[in-house]
């Protein structure tokens, strides 16, 4: 069946021009359509950029000139307007520059043609490809100096047999690494194929690598990243992402795969996700399938597919939020989580909450003050009714059983989006 897309309504959605019903239809579609969600992020960025445009007052002299014109006097501006010269000084300067540039280019072309420059006599480098065959490559395509004839080894893909690791070594000592691009380094070695416990894998701006996590999944390491294999055994496989990003796709029982970051630990609950750590150690987790728990200091945020969560070094764990959250709601959430936004931020979120903010609202219940909790309760109950046995009083007094029971309903509602 052909899927109906809503990409023509994204601008109206971002600008809050749709009615409540249409807004819900688009939001629901965005939860399930990668294509429209990508466009939504572009439209949202464009709207955010456009909101930097500012109104400005006209200069004082504009009225004086209008008034002079009303009095029947010819104003300097209108004189200038009617007698605008064909060239101003800047244009003349630009034209002169153009003539110089064209002249210079002509001279260089002339020299290239008549003095045996690079055209027609390009030096050749001999490369050996991955199959051992020699190839001639123009020097301009390599980093070698012109005129030099060199024999180098072409970038080698990781040979298939290096991934066939001895059975004895797969238990608890290293993970196989495959180079995707560039030359990732392991320890002091560039292009290594095994990441041992305690070793670091680093990628530069042009490098990417894939780590095979035992037999439970794969982790792709983004450029400019530094990852350590903390430990691996039958009960737990653990990496540490110190900076950069990774994309993990894991099929395993919950809590078997964990990634530490400077500000929290991402505990896999059977999922696919992206984790980014910036230079200051702050992180952002975005889950695309299943669930991930972010944990720190006894606090936990369960992040489902379609949601993200931030952590800030020294300030702790943030609250999960929908990937289609409004900028205003997200700003208030960041203020609440990391800048002491308190009741004001809570009020802002409650006022602006949409049904796709239910994950955030549920997580806020135990995190807000006793005074702010009723408003959060009401906002969440508006979208997901508390199931039988869950009472307002129980939730407001943070009855753990009731909160967990309601969470199941919230997660079910989330999964239906």
């Amino acid at each position: 069946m052909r899927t109906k897309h809503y990409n023509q309504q994204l601008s109206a959605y971002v600008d809050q021009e749709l009615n409540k019903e249409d807004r819900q239809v688009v939001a629901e579609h965005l939860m399930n359509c990668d294509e429209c969600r990508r466009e939504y992020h572009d439209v949202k960025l464009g709207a955010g950029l456009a909101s930097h445009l500012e109104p400005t007052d006209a200069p004082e002299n504009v009225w004086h000139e209008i008034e002079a014109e009303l009095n029947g006097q010819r104003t300097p501006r209108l004189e200038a307007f009617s007698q605008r010269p064909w060239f101003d000084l800047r244009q003349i300067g630009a034209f002169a520059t153009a003539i110089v540039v064209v002249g210079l280019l002509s001279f260089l072309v002339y020299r290239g043609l008549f003095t045996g420059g690079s055209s027609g006599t390009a030096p050749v480098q001999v490369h050996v490809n991955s199959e051992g065959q020699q190839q001639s490559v123009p020097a301009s395509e390599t980093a070698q100096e012109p005129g030099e004839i060199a024999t180098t080894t072409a970038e080698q893909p990781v040979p298939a047999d290096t991934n066939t690791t001895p059975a004895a070594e797969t238990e608890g000592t290293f993970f196989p690494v495959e180079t995707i691009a560039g030359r990732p380094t392991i320890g002091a070695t560039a292009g290594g194929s095994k990441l041992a416990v305690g070793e670091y894998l680093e990628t530069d701006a042009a490098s990417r690598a894939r780590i095979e996590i035992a037999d439970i999944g794969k982790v792709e390491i983004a450029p400019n990243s530094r990852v350590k294999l903390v430990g691996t055994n039958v009960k737990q496989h653990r990496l540490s992402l110190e900076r950069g990003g990774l994309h993990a796709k894991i099929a395993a029982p919950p809590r078997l795969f964990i990634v530490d970051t400077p500000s929290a630990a991402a505990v896999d609950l059977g999922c696919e996700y992206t984790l980014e750590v910036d230079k200051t150690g702050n992180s952002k987790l975005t889950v695309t399938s299943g669930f991930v728990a972010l944990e720190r200091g006894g606090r936990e945020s369960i992040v489902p597919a379609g949601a993200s969560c931030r952590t800030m070094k020294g300030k702790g764990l943030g609250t999960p939020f929908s990937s289609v959250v409004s900028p205003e709601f997200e700003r208030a959430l960041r203020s609440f989580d990391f800048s002491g936004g308190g009741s004001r931020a809570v009020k802002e979120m409650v006022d602006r909450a949409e049904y796709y903010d239910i994950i955030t609202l549920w997580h806020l219940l135990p995190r807000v003050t006793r005074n702010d909790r009723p408003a959060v309760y009401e906002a969440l109950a508006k979208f997901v009714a508390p199931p039988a046995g869950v009472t307002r009083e129980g939730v407001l007094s943070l009855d753990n059983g009731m909160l967990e029971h309601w969470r199941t309903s919230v997660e079910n509602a989330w999964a239906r989006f």
Partner: protein
Amino acid sequence: MERLVLVTENRSNTDLLSECRNGSREAMRTLYLENQRRVYSIALNFFGGDSERASDVTQQVFLKLLKKMDFRGESEFNTWLYRMTVNQCIDESRKSKRFLNFEDWLGFAEPVTRMSLTDKLHTREISAEVQAVVASLKPKYRLPILLKYVEGMSYQEIAGVLQCSIGTVSSRLNRGHKLLATKLGHLRNDI
């Protein structure tokens, strides 16, 4: 200060226009002060921050309003004023194309792209960069963006000014937003 005093008199644009028709210079000045920001802001952003051309447009629009008395009351005053501004911007833009502009021809007229990264982090510079890129869009994408984000108009009001359907406004804004995202994607983390 003078403007504050005038605003407190709380006369509607219709009242002021009626006084203008009777030749009241004070009413003309009040009407100008009340509305100059709208006209000048649209024109300034339309021309990528060129205050000379924005001043030209502002002057022309108000001369049509105050001297020629072009407003006949066939539409809302605000709609008429925005429509006049938009048309004047387009006319001014066409006129300037008759003059050879070697800077544009050579691609030299892009000062904002030469800003350092540190400068770009500053909101003012981000605004200048956004302004320059908006000014480079085709008018059909540029104008809805200006009316929406400089003037805060609804899609319905924009449709009234541009004399098109709300769906057209929506789809042009959609396209305009995506063009901005493409051209200014490097500012993603700065806003």
